[in-house]
């Protein structure tokens, strides 16, 4: 089957996809779809959690399996440095397990990468990592909230820079996808359109990670601008990306 699936058809296949029950060409199309659709990614994650619960078989793996694993890893010499692919801006590579919940994941990936990078600097970052995980988990939970509103912030060229979710109580999360690192004297700043006003929702820094924010629950759309470090009270810049919450 080579025809392109519609979004509705791909939504219908999310359950089968989560169970590895689709054909290869469908899988490829769905993985492309998931990269652009946070709600679909969250649904697949939920389906896989249910599947994992169905797998509760208990028991133990046979003796000897761990010994073989230990033998294998004990002969490996760790590389001196291993950078994590935080946000591949133009990568078209499709892995078997794509970056579902990609941007939420990017935070965790970034944390893991950072962990290794800092290994030689004797920084105990386990606690930091766990804290970042908690933020990522909070964002993921918000995305699975059926009452939350979501949007992907796109550039004029159609590139999805980030996902934003706002829950009914005004708790929001920004989850970067492809936000190029800015110069150190610049920062991304997030804005919400509430009624006729454009309100700053926060300064994100020049290399944003998953961020939490609070806003008026009636915020209609979200914009990102590129500002001087520290941010501004009123922006004069053209948004680098924007999206309508739905």
């Amino acid at each position, binding site marked *: 089957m080579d025809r392109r699936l519609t979004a509705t058809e791909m939504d219908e296949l999310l359950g089968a996809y989560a*169970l590895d029950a689709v054909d290869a060409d469908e899988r490829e199309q769905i993985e492309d779809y998931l990269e652009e659709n946070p709600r679909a990614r969250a649904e697949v994650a939920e389906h896989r959690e249910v599947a994992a619960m169905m*797998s509760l078989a208990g*028991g133990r793996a046979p003796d000897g399996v761990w010994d073989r694993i230990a033998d294998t890893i004990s002969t490996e010499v760790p590389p001196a440095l291993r950078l994590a692919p935080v946000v591949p801006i133009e990568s078209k590579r499709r892995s078997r397990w794509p970056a579902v919940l990609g941007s939420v994941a990017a935070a965790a990936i970034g944390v893991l990468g950072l962990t290794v990078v800092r290994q030689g600097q004797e920084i105990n970052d386990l606690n930091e990592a766990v804290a970042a995980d908690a933020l990522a988990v909070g964002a993921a939970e918000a995305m699975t909230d059926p009452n939350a509103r979501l949007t992907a912030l796109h550039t004029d060229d159609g590139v999805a820079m980030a996902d934003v979710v706002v829950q009914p109580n005004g708790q929001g999360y920004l989850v970067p996808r492809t936000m190029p690192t800015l110069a150190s004297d610049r920062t991304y700043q997030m804005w919400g359109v509430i009624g006729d006003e454009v309100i700053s929702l926060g300064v994100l820094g020049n290399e944003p990670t998953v961020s939490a924010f609070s806003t008026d629950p009636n915020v209609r759309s979200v914009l990102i601008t590129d500002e001087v470090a520290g941010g501004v009270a009123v922006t004069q810049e053209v948004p680098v990306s924007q999206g309508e919450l739905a």
Partner: protein
Amino acid sequence: MTAEPLRDASDATLVVAIARYRQDALAEAYRRHAGAVYGLARRLLASESIAEEVTQEVFLRLWNHPDRFEPGRGSLRSYLLAQTHGRSVDVLRSEGARRRREEREARATAEGGYDLEHEVWDLATAERVREAVSSLPDGERRAIELAYFGGHTYREVASMLREPEGTVKSRIRSGLKRMRTHLVDIGTGGPSWTDA
């Protein structure tokens, strides 16, 4: 780096430690999850030796690519089991394995009729999960069982059940959603694996 006690660490902390090449962290992850990984692989592949290989592969993959685990996406166990399922299905769908499976299923049919339900659940121990599955309409339950534990595509499931493909894919999706709702309603929003 000074070793930190990992017995009580969260899965996310374990994975961070694995990224720092701490073998004891991988050993702890193995202690918690290898039984489920192996059990699922064995169930799908009906071969202890191949299930052992898949188990080994899944944990080595975690060791080599800890960054692919995304805490925001779900638990470490669901990640490992998704890996296990995907790899097992790949093996299962290879031609040789497919022949073996068809022979096995034909033999089972000849000997005692098609009793996948019994086969599926003789390994399941969670009463609540069992209850959630049993609460599903028959069509949804059988579609999910055949897809997940049988390793079949939804098209194959449709053929086996003599149902339209669209019906089967809808049933898989709606069944999974129904199970999740049921599990949440009865207080099993998700398992806690730290003490597993």
